[in-house]
């Protein structure tokens, strides 16, 4: 089975300078009635992105001309808190994002993101502030995320290392399917059941 793959990416970014963005903002619950993963990109940040009459809210950052084609979201602290809905990364990926940079991610969101090839890049507050300031001056700022070296860099600066657990990194670099990996342990699971149940 095909699993998402990621090695490196150089792309423009868009900054959402809000902390504690919860999954209800990323994708409101009324769109969770879908029974597949497709089509959620249109609903990403729906209540911030659209006005009451359904037209695009020109003030929202994703709707500004300089945001078009950006593949990296630079978000505030504690991104993705709240519910466990995997619809949140489905919507971000559906919109065209391949990575999110923040100073902290909520646990379940981070796990869900990786499984969908969306790279959660955690950097220190000082580096984050520097990135946001540079991007404000230069809307075309290119960011490079290299999973092989676990680094993120911009404008030829010294690359900043970001943490990612080794297993997720291997899965993404090699396109390993996690369910396939887990299935290899079925004999051990049976032994466990025989001993415990």
């Amino acid at each position, binding site marked *: 089975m095909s699993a998402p793959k990621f090695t490196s990416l150089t792309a423009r970014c868009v900054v959402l300078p809000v*902390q504690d963005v*919860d999954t209800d903002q990323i994708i409101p619950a009324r769109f969770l*009635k879908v029974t597949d993963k497709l089509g959620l990109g249109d609903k990403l940040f729906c209540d911030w992105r659209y006005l*009451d009459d359904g037209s695009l809210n020109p003030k929202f950052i994703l709707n500004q001309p300089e945001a078009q084609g950006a593949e990296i979201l630079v978000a505030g602290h*504690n991104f993705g808190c*709240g519910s466990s809905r995997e619809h949140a990364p489905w919507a971000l990926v559906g919109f065209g994002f391949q990575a999110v940079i923040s100073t902290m991610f*909520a646990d*379940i969101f981070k796990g869900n993101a990786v499984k969908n090839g969306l790279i959660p890049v955690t950097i220190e507050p000082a580096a984050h502030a520097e990135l946001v300031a540079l991007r404000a001056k230069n809307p075309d700022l290119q960011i490079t995320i290299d999973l092989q070296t676990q680094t993120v860099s911009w404008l030829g600066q010294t690359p900043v290392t970001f943490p990612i657990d080794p297993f997720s990194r291997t899965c993404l670099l090699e396109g390993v399917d996690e*369910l396939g990996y*887990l299935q290899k342990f079925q004999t051990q699971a049976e032994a466990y059941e025989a001993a415990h149940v």
Partner: protein
Amino acid sequence: MSQNPKTLFQKIWDSHVVAEERGAPTVLYIDLHLVHEVTSPQAFSVLKERGLKVRRPGRTVATMDHSIPTKGGYEAADEMGRIQLRLLESNANANGVRLYGLNSVQRGIVHVIGPEQGFTQPGMTIVCGDSHTSTHGAFGSLGFGIGTSEVGHVLATQCLLQRKPKTCEIRVDGTLRPGVTAKDIILAVLAKIGVGGGTGHVFEYTGAAIRALDMEGRMTVCNMSIEGGARAGMVAPDDKTFNFVHGREFAPQGAAWDQAVARWRTLPTDAGATFDQTVTLDASSLEPMVTFGTNPGQGVAITQPLPQPSSLTNANERAGLEKSLAYMKFEAGKPILGQPVDVVFLGSCTNSRLVDLRAAAGLLKGRKVAKSVRMLVVPGSQSVKLAAEAEGLDKIFKEAGAEWREAGCSMCIAMNGDQLSPGQLAVSTSNRNFEGRQGKGGRTVLASPLTAVASAVAGRIADPRPLMT
């Protein structure tokens, strides 16, 4: 002191390791997998694509709660909601999974029926595609929410890949004063640590105030652990726990019961075991708590003025507070008491059990819901509903002017048609006050059932204590 003292969490973790490979997360065995209609369709699709079946249907339990109408019948659901409910039926049937379907008298919110039917037991690992799986930790189990990919993993293998979280003790000493409840404890914890404060950790709640809570109160506290960013929340099992589980349909019986209790008694954290972090709180000093912002960590004692953004030194936090107050249409420095209320919602996996309805009805008896307020009472399960009706609680609610509904998540998540209109203010016993959570443009104040009733009666945010003398 034991030789190698361990925490409750550590004991459960260690006893569920199936395998560990270098450089990979632990393969953890899952004892109980709870399933609902919203986060399971895509997981069942993966099984179908790969020609797999549910590996342990006997350890899998499904219910309908999120999209389900609380007025009864499928008819009230919209087309997509109906498709989702029917799909769960066919997936459960095709895999031999027990389903508490639309007409089941035991159907209810997944985190209410697990304990109610005796599925939830001490020492277990419990998962669900739902972040409030932390609720089950009240029984001294390890319960946590997972994403839909992981729902597929557990359906197919009964195992999960997990990295071990850190531990945090939340010690709540002292005695609660009248009118202050388990909900106020957890809202105070969240106000103290913030919505990201528990990220990467599992909480264990300890201390005299936690031991004094009944099982329902412990569930309320553990339920909102995820609101602090924690993976799970736990309370060591004791006689209250065992008495609650005893005699329930899926609890061990006879000799198996005695063996189980003997095993469960070894679970509590050993003297001398250490936590990665500790947070303390004095229950004796607590007042009823309410949230004023758009995340559950933005809470204050009900008698206190709203905080001033200018008091915050961190620019991001200041911006966050300003944004929240603007959305809520509340003014910094002003009291929250007396703000006019449009809707009162009594329900959700946080506060919809029989004891919550009893406490609310006790305060509402002989009083009326203010004319300007719509009050919804949504029991956590059909069993709760029937038990409440047997005690006549439904009459108290209806006579006061509240709506008495069928079980479901209802206005906690506003997927089933029960929702706020833009601008409306709700006092809600649920767990999330995110922007639009209870309906686009709706404003939510989280509170205990007692504060919710006092506010329904006054038509304004009100302190329940004056009504209790």
